[in-house]
């Protein structure tokens, strides 16, 4: 557990830099995390982020194919938006946990 400051907001993160409390997230925080990951956010990026946050709120496990079928983006586009680890990066920016298995 550590504290980090994004866009003037102090947030709690786990060792890998994922927010541990979604209540601390806002769009500016998300944009600042994206910048750190080398991503400049566009409307399309935010659409994906909103979708992920919605799914997470409903307790739905996330997968690349699920996002691909969501109607928001196809998988190729998803890779273009978040190069080199689409779900890892997008969930981090969205302030939600990265997808995990049980161990």
């Amino acid at each position: 557990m550590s504290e980090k400051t994004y866009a003037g907001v102090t947030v709690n993160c786990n060792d890998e830099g994922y927010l541990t409390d979604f209540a601390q997230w806002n769009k500016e925080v998300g944009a600042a995390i994206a910048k750190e990951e080398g991503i400049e956010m566009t409307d399309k990026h935010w659409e994906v982020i909103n979708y992920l946050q919605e799914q997470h709120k409903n307790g739905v496990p996330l997968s690349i194919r699920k996002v691909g079928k969501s109607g928001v983006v196809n998988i190729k586009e998803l890779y273009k938006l978040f190069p080199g680890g689409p779900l890892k990066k997008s969930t981090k920016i969205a302030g939600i946990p990265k997808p995990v298995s049980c161990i």
Partner: protein
Amino acid sequence: MKKLLILGAGTSGTMMANHLRKKLPNNEWDITIVDKEKTHYYQPGFLFLPFDIYKSKQVKKSIDKFIPKGVNLVREQIDRINKDEDQVILQNGKTLSYDILIIATGTNIAPQEIEGMSGKYWHKDIFDFYTYRGAKNLRNKLREWKGGKLVVHICEMPIKCPVAPLEFAFLADSFFINKNMRDKVEITFVTPMDGAFTKPKASKELSYLLEEKNIKLVPNFNIERVDGENKKIIDYAEQEVDYDLLVTVPTNMGDELIERSGFGDDLNFVPTDKATLQTKVKENIFAIGDATNIPASKAGSVAHFEAEILTENIVRYIDGKELKNKFDGHANCFIETGHGKALLIDFNYTHEPVPGSFPLPGVGPLRLLKESYMNHMGKLAFRWIYWNMLIKGKHIPFVTPEMSTAGKEF
């Protein structure tokens, strides 16, 4: 007479039939259970079948042996649920009406979801071990395989028994060592996750396993297609992994009857409240086990804990009482690591697997998140427990439906 109908007589449905027949008076409640199969498979045994550790007859028994007296068993394919009429339509055109419905139809593999997977190379050099046929065909292949590149692969999450693929890789290492041909086999584990272990404590305690067993890891691999002719799997980032023998866990999906009924999610899982197990479809429809969309592991042990809580909630529902928000996602699984050893993990929605002792705090005799011979014996004993206690709905001593934090090192 009121009617309670259970769809699916696998692990969960069978447990519910046993629990509820004891709770609901015979003269008030008629209980019926429907399944298309005549065989009840012990699916955890599918992990051992390919390596000739279990014989095929150890993993299957007749379904009707486990359905209690006073419960009607209907052997027929279920076509769909008509929730508005409180009716289930069978493939033979018959309808069954109900006052309360329990969906326990589990999950199936869907290799057709990945381009090139289920074609002419299926069960030739591409195998699953999540079905009886797959496990048996793979056993026959492994008996004569001369070695090469073995790739153990997960298509996408969620899958039932999420650690089974890793266990398969560990057991394969032992298997080839025992056959004196480990030097002829290269084992690679390919996963869409960012590691073989994804939780902090488990990663810390267990990362040595892959190295020790000389298993190569390819993480973050999201498969797009299989090139069966050139024996490659290819992902969306154009990563390629070559194989001679591909052992894959295809996409897991709920039964198509859920889709035909018009209320599943995109993988045909039933939207269900994760604490009460009542579905979000309708008040009188409940769901249990692999068929639900709850964020718990899809495992027999989880279904066992769910069954105790769902039984209580169904009785409360009948009595017009508020349902208990009691299910905490508790799972308790043995993980084979090969060479006669296993690990044990115990966790729930909010607590990741940690080291400690189980089931008696500080005593054990089982150790959590550590390899031991005792844990391996536990895994083998689980087959006996499954057939003789678990699906008959008997309580397993010292193990409560809600996870205990005592004796654990958080």
